[in-house]
C-alpha cells in the first residue's frame, strides 16, 4: 500500500519530520508544505536526513516556498515542486494520506 505523508511544521520547531521519515517505507511519498518547506533546502542540519531517505519521493508545495522567499535553486536534489493542484493529484494517486500534524 502506498502512502502520501504530509509534514507542515518546520523540523527546527517540531520533530514531526523526523518521526515521519522514521516511519515512511519504500514506495511512499513525502510532501513538505507550510513551514515544512524549510526541510527541503540544502545546507541545513536535516538536509542529509531528507536527502538520504531511500525509495521515498520528495515533494514541496511551491506557493509555500514562494511565500517564504525561498528559491527553488536551493532545494535538495530530487525534490519536486508542486502547486495545490499537484497536492490534490498526489492525494488521489497514493492509497492513503497520513498527515503528521
Amino acid at each position, binding site marked *: 500500500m502506498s502512502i502520501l505523508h504530509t509534514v507542515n511544521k518546520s523540523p527546527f520547531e517540531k520533530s514531526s519530520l523526523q518521526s515521519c521519515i522514521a516511519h515512511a517505507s519504500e514506495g511512499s511519498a513525502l510532501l513538505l508544505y507550510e513551514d515544512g518547506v524549510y526541510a527541503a533546502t540544502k545546507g541545513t542540519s536535516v538536509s542529509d536526513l531528507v536527502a538520504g531517505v531511500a525509495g521515498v519521493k520528495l515533494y514541496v508545495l511551491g506557493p509555500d516556498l514562494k511565500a517564504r522567499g525561498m528559491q527553488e535553486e536551493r532545494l535538495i536534489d530530487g525534490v519536486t515542486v508542486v502547486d*495545490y493542484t499537484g497536492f490534490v493529484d498526489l492525494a488521489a494517486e497514493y492509497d492513503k494520506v497520513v498527515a503528521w*500534524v
Partner: protein
Amino acid sequence: MKFAIQINEGPYQHQAADSAYLFTKAALEKGHEIFRVFFYHDGVGNSTRLTTPPQDDRHIVNRWAALAEQYNLDLVVCVAAAQRRGMVDDGEAERNRKDATNIHPKFRISGLGQLIEAAVQSDRLMVFGD
C-alpha cells in the same frame, strides 16, 4: 474521487485554515467531490459570522461560505469543541440558554459521528492543523 477535510486550527492562527481552503478549492476545480468539511478543536473558530478582518485581508469565514454556496458543501462544526469555545447556533442557544449566536448560516453544528461517517464514506481524509 471523494475527499473529506478535517480542520483542527483556528483562522488567522497559522496557515492550516488557508491550506485546507486552497486544497479544497483545487480539488473541487479538478472535479473531485468534497463529502464534508469538518471543523474540530480550534478549527471551530472558522465558522463565526462575526469575523471582521481588515479590508485588505482575506475573509476566511466568508471564503468558506462562498465555496459552500458555489459547490453545495457540507460545513460541519463539532458541537463539543464549539460549546467549549463559545460557538453557538440557534439550537445551541436555546438548549444552553445563551443570549446570542455567532455561527455563520452556511455552517451547521453536529457531532463527531459526522467526522467518522465522512472518513468512512470518502476515499481520502485530509487533516489540516497543528
